[in-house]
């Protein structure tokens, strides 16, 4: 497989996709976009069985960065599997894969080590199951990966914008006769990208222009 041109900007998001986690997932997607990266995740493919796994592995191969929340003990165990694939790709992949980087999120501090003790020594970022804190964790981690000339707003501003997006989401969906509760990953991106472009980004002048 050839390395995509967007490899350095692709961020693989590995987290639960259930209703309870949805506000956190959408906050992570939103923050990744505002930080000028491309959110990728397993929801891009909804096929069953081994074909789906192959597609997930292909997505992981295309992503330099990974955000993994393995702290939620869900009925399914896809998150530790996808983290393992990501770490394995970094270890055994091609030369550029050795530079893959990932962060491990956890809802409560030390909650991941309970059942993934092999990850001891890894730096975790706890977000206390709160949206503003997960935005802060992701923002601070990604802000470190971009050029110093790139302006990334701080977390409080991003939290305000994300709340505004969440408020607008039902109205945006109503126009398309979509349901905010049933939005697919692609539909979410189709709304969040122009929304960020039109509202967050366009409503201020980049200080780097000064």
């Amino acid at each position, binding site marked *: 497989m050839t390395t995509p041109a967007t490899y350095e900007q692709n961020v693989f998001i590995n987290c639960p996709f259930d209703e309870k986690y949805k506000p956190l997932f959408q906050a992570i997607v939103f923050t990744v976009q505002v930080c000028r990266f491309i959110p990728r995740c397993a929801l891009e493919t909804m096929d069953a069985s081994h074909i789906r796994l192959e597609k997930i592995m292909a997505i992981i191969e295309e992503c330099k960065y990974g955000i993994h929340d393995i702290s939620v003990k869900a009925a399914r165990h896809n998150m530790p599997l996808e983290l393992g694939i990501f770490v394995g790709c970094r270890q055994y992949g091609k030369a550029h894969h050795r530079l893959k980087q990932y962060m491990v999120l956890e809802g409560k501090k030390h909650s991941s080590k309970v059942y993934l003790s092999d990850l001891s020594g890894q730096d975790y970022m706890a977000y206390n199951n709160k949206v503003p804190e997960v935005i802060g964790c992701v923002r601070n981690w990604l802000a470190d990966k971009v050029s110093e000339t790139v302006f990334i707003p701080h977390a409080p501003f991003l939290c305000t914008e994300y709340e505004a997006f969440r408020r607008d989401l039902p109205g945006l969906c109503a126009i398309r006769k979509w349901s905010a509760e049933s939005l697919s990953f692609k539909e979410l991106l189709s709304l969040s*990208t122009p929304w960020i472009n039109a509202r967050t980004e366009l409503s201020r002048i980049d200080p780097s222009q000064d």
Partner: protein
Amino acid sequence: MAGEQDVVIEIQARNPTTGHYIKRNLQTGRIEVKTDGKPFKGVPMNRIVLAPANSAIDPETAQRGEEAVIEYLNKKARQK
């Protein structure tokens, strides 16, 4: 390009999911879209550029999303 003395009242950026340019009036909040892939003439470009689109988004979905955002935000702007 706006000079130091100019007051910027409109600014534009490219929507990476559709390739269209979106212009926003900073005073009224009104948004316009240009669908030919070329930027609005005489309107400063925001240097904050979003990353390229996720290639998993099909053009039809991207187009529908963009239309919804513009219609919704313009409706909000009119209500203010």
